[in-house]
């Protein structure tokens, strides 16, 4: 009995690993195909249309500005509260500015923005492509002679690569501002002085670190979203399953990638 259970477990593990490898290959091929269309689309008379990229950028970026601002402001306030409380122990509360500036730009802003975009737009991408798959719209594109990766995938990836870093910069500003507002109230530091100290604490490298991460996170969200959408099977339920899966996978990969990047970028 235990042998049988063990065998079933190993078999299941093997099957899942195989599926994982297969899916990784699929995502890699999708990425390669997207790059192909971005570079050679015009020569093949199938250009990636700027209008489509702009439309996606509106959905992914511009419409996310309010929520990104609010969340990053809140994170900044939260960091200020925690930082001041912790640093009080050493009587070094005035150093809180450095902590806020560095942690927001290097870590919190790219992470919060990416998780938000994964939940907002990654899910929407999967749901949209999945629904199109189910209603044969993807087939219709192919028989019209429009490559679906070029028409749907490439604009989404491009818009994501542009908008997630842009939102991260916004998040940097709002996070530091949020910290400044609380610090001003608690430690009576004028905002101008706070801003000056924050700028003095920041190096170009800190901003760059956040931006490099955000580009990687953007690619993760777009590729996971698009690939899950194209793989939808099984009607409305399938679309729902794929959407959930897309968000969970994106966020998991983002956090894992963040850990790995932080390790390598800080050594």
């Amino acid at each position, binding site marked *: 009995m235990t042998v049988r259970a063990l065998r079933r477990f190993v078999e299941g593990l093997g099957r899942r690993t195989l599926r994982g490898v297969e899916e990784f290959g699929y995502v890699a091929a999708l990425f390669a195909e997207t790059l192909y269309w971005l570079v050679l689309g015009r020569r*093949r008379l*199938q250009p990636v249309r700027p209008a489509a990229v702009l439309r996606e950028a509106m959905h992914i970026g511009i419409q996310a500005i309010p929520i990104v601002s609010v969340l990053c402001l809140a994170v900044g306030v939260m960091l200020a509260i925690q930082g001041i409380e912790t640093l009080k122990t050493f009587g070094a509360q005035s150093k809180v500015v450095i902590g806020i500036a560095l942690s927001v730009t290097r870590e919190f802003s790219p992470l919060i923005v990416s998780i938000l975009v994964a939940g907002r737009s990654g899910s929407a991408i999967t749901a949209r492509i999945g*629904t*199109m798959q189910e*209603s*044969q*719209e993807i*087939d*219709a594109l*192919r*028989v*019209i*002679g*429009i490559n679906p990766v070029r028409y749907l995938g490439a604009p989404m990836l491009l818009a994501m690569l542009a908008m997630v870093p842009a939102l991260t910069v916004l998040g940097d500003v709002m996070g530091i501002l949020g910290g400044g507002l609380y610090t001003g109230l608690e430690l009576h530091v004028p905002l101008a002085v706070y801003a000056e100290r924050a700028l003095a604490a920041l190096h170009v490298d800190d901003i760059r670190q956040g931006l490099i991460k955000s580009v990687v996170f953007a690619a993760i969200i777009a590729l996971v979203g698009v690939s899950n959408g194209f793989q939808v099977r099984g009607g409305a339920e399938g679309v729902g399953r794929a959407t959930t899966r897309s968000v969970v996978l994106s966020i998991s990969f983002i956090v894992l990638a963040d850990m790995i990047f932080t390790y390598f970028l800080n050594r």
Partner: protein
Amino acid sequence: MAEPPTPSAPPPAPDSGVEPVIEVRDLVAHYGARRILNEVNLTVMPGEIMVIMGASGSGKSTLLRHLLGLRRPTSGTVRVLGKDINRIPARQMHALRRSMGVAFQGGALFGSMTVGENVCLPLREHTKLDENTMRIMSRMKLEVVNLGGFEDLMPSELSGGMTKRAALARAIIMDPRLLFFDEPSAGLDPIAAAELDDLILRLRQAMNMTIVVVTHELVSAFKIADRITVIDEGEILMTGTVEEVRASDNERVQNLLHRRPRDELVDADDYLRRLTR
């Protein structure tokens, strides 16, 4: 209602030496380990309306997907307009697609675009026409399918029959030589279905297209077909004119025509084995 028009000249016979528009040879297809199509052979001649008829699950939709180049076969060849669509380079396939129009079962109109934009899409992708010309052309095609004035509606605002006609307008916008129509009458009331049948006949006469219709509707098939291919369990049972199909002594063909349920030869032992497996 006016009599459905008849074609001016009958399409050439399959063995007349004229090159067929579609030629399928020994097509075998699988979904996973399950064999869906078994040694399928099919010839469609220029200008004819070929109806591929079969019950659901017979493999007719899979056959259509192979004709459209949406699936690769396990073995066998599919030649469309003289080209082996599984062997030609992507560029040639892209060019070939301009000569093929497809109207899908559910219409497959893009939900984010208006009806007019949907109809224009192939023009936008394949030609360099200016907006005005494209708009006029799409209006013309919408008039052909009796949808004049509906170009600014969204697909979600159309009824089932209108959706199918809009899909048809998109399929014929490039004036294709070959038109595929998947289940034209499925889900429609009898009048809308009859209108669509007339429209298919009119189109063939007006535009001299070759039309392949996939359907399970007998009435519709008998009305529009020059020849009918009957498919069952992945095998072609017969191909022939309406009269030949009606007169066939093949039991499975007759079962389909008379809507008889499939003979279920229940082997008691086998049945028990299946249950206790």
